[in-house]
């Protein structure tokens, strides 16, 4: 048995960065407030003191600028980790991310590799209103050239982030901002988790729930409730959207005949549409029920918590939706 310890999600992220920085002197971190403050979400606490100003760099509020700078570092031999505070702000740096970072390796005929990790956050629930609460990972998945990671638990976040940092191609690493202060059990010591390997969090035979980011953990809780009522839910965390572990998803849907996808992005053009379409030719004749999804409704997120929470997919909404599928 692996020895476990209790730490928060942000500590797990910090630990991954710390371990990789001490392992490889080419790894460095930059972004808004990652230095003196230790990160807006406390994901770089103590790193500035340990590695100094050159390897832990505070940047101006200029996403396009410092993302471009990171690309320069990456193609000239460094292994930067960039923090973009909110995925909403990725749009400011969309040209660097989607036109430059995603394409340089291809356009240089493989002469330049881009070992760059872009970390950002998604998720509503902090009364941050419409421009600081979005989950924009589906937009980033549209353009070829990036690997996109959406970890659920702290343990997964640590293992996957270490893999991202060691990856020679650009990785967009998406953390859920409501998880940072949550405590988790994670294995002691160093470990990595490979990309393209979905995690079956709970085995079941009646319905497959494919849930991204922290919704995977909420789905497990909903599943435990549903189990008491005789509905046996299989919960799968795809872990990485690109590459996607089709085989695991297909095998599960073939087994259960039903699939519900849960993702905190807007419903329209949600990543769930892409996942369903991707596996449909393999699973069509195994479906007992049309695929369903639980996402954020197609409206800007309100500031008022009273209006905000009813919109966010959560454990209770998952529970109700699955119950409805089995109502007959």
């Amino acid at each position, binding site marked *: 048995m692996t020895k476990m310890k209790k730490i928060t999600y942000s500590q797990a992220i910090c630990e991954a960065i710390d371990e990789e920085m001490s392992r490889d002197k080419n790894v460095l971190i930059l972004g808004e407030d990652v230095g003196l403050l230790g990160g807006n979400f406390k994901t770089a606490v103590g790193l500035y003191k340990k590695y100094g100003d050159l390897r832990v760099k505070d940047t101006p509020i200029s996403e396009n600028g410092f993302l471009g700078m990171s690309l320069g570092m990456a193609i000239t031999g460094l292994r930067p980790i960039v923090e973009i505070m909110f995925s909403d702000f990725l749009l400011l740096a969309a040209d660097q991310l989607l036109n430059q970072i995603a394409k340089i390796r291809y356009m240089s005929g493989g002469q330049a590799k881009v070992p760059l990790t872009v970390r950002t956050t998604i998720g509503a629930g902090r009364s941050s209103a419409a421009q600081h609460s979005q989950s924009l990972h589906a937009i980033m998945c549209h353009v070829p050239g990036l690997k996109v990671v959406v970890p659920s638990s702290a343990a997964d976040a640590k293992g996957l982030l270490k893999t991202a940092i060691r990856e020679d191609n650009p990785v967009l690493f998406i953390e859920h901002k409501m998880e940072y202060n949550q405590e988790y059990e994670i294995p002691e010591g160093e470990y990595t988790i490979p990309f393209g390997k979905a995690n079956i969090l709970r085995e079941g035979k009646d319905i497959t729930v494919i849930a991204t980011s922290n919704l995977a953990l909420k789905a497990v809780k909903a599943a435990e409730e549903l189990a008491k009522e005789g509905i046996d839910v299989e919960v799968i965390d795809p872990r990485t959207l690109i590459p996607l572990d089709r085989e695991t998803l297909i095998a599960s849907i073939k087994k259960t*005949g039903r699939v519900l996808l849960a993702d905190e992005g807007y419903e329209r053009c949600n990543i769930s549409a892409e996942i369903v379409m991707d596996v449909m030719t393999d699973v*069509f*004749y*195994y*479906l*007992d*029920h049309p695929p369903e999804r639980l996402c954020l409704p197609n409206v800007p997120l309100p500031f008022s918590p009273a209006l905000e929470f009813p919109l966010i997919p959560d454990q209770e909404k998952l529970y109700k939706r699955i119950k*409805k*599928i*089995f*109502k*007959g």
Partner: protein
Amino acid sequence: MAKYIIMPKLGFNMDQGTVVQWLKEEGDAIEEREEVLEIETDKTIMPVEAPCSGILRKILVAEGEVVPVTLPIAIIGDKNEDISKMIDEAYQKLGKTEVVEKKESKVEIEVSPEIVKEQEIESKKEGFKKVSPRAQRKAKELGVELQSLKGSGSEGAVIEKDIITYYQNHQIKVSPVAQTIAQKAGIDIGTIKGTGINGKVTKRDIQEMLAKSEEVNKTERRTSYTGMRKIIGDRLSQSKFTAPHIYFTTSIDMSKVIGLLERFNQDSEEKISINDFLVFVVTKVLSEQPNINCSLVGEEIVYHKDINVGVAVALEEGLIVPVIKNANKKSLSILSKEIKKLIKLARERKLMPEDYQGGTFTLSNLGMYGIENFTAIINPPEAAILAVGAVKKLPTVIEKGGLEEIGIRSLMKVTLSVDHRLIDGAMAASFLNRLKYYLEFPERLIL
């Protein structure tokens, strides 16, 4: 008060019975103790009597269906009594979802896939019946017709579970004991070939399966002598030990028949086989020599009016002999079609009891396995069986215009086994000679 007629338990070992024939129709008035239907156990066919007088209001189980003992199979009641609750309750017990009509099950089997598709589209047009893709796939795989199914999925859609439930209730016949054992051992009943009546999976089938998997690593394989194997064994032992067999073999020159069939089959899509032709000629000879077409029943010899020719079909689990009824009234092409259909049904384990009962003479052909000559055991209560060997090209002496010369001819050996209690050597010889007479000069068939 309305009452159920239930599937009776007629012996200690009987856990279910097959409805063979309804002797009464819905609406018929019935006296107490009057015979209403016939059932078949693994041993015999028995009539079932009415438990009370009244009107036969509802038949719940179609002919050919297998029902566990004590479950309701019909309802007797007064003319105007409301029996809808009883019908619901009965169908629930029987695990049925729809009203079963008499004789329908057999017709269903014969519906071709194209027609099923058309009907499916029809029903979708009319009622917008929802069937999940998974259910459609399963239905195709199991050969379940979707039309009569009720769905339990969302918006009343038919889902896989409905297909499987329907299939288990209607197709795989499983005894309750077998089902329990299979569930405990984690065996998928769908993978087991049943050896009971209508391919029913019995307790012994499951035990054999378990024994097999346990003994894979041992040097010798043992299975219990039960099911179809035992039925065949018992019947043949009974035949061989009670009926004194005598055997007569002759060689028949089949060159002309082969030439004739080649010409028949040249432009025809429905090919006529040597076996089909043999059934045709045997029937002809039997109609000329009715003293072969007989049975010993008790103290009497019964000479059958009908000529019903059985054709032995080898299956993995044993031998089965589907019967072509009234073969003497059928043309060669109709015989050929019917034989093909019956063999197909036999291989698919879909033969109904009436398909293999009532034979008066049997033909067993091992020619396709290259066997030159063999003797067969009479299939009781018949009095004779013809064993047919392979057609082989052999040098033989041919007479032509008073001259003898050696030529190559297609020769076939046939051996007739007869029950000497009923048939003497001269009669058997005469039968074979007549067979040879037609087969060597098939032109004579039109004389």
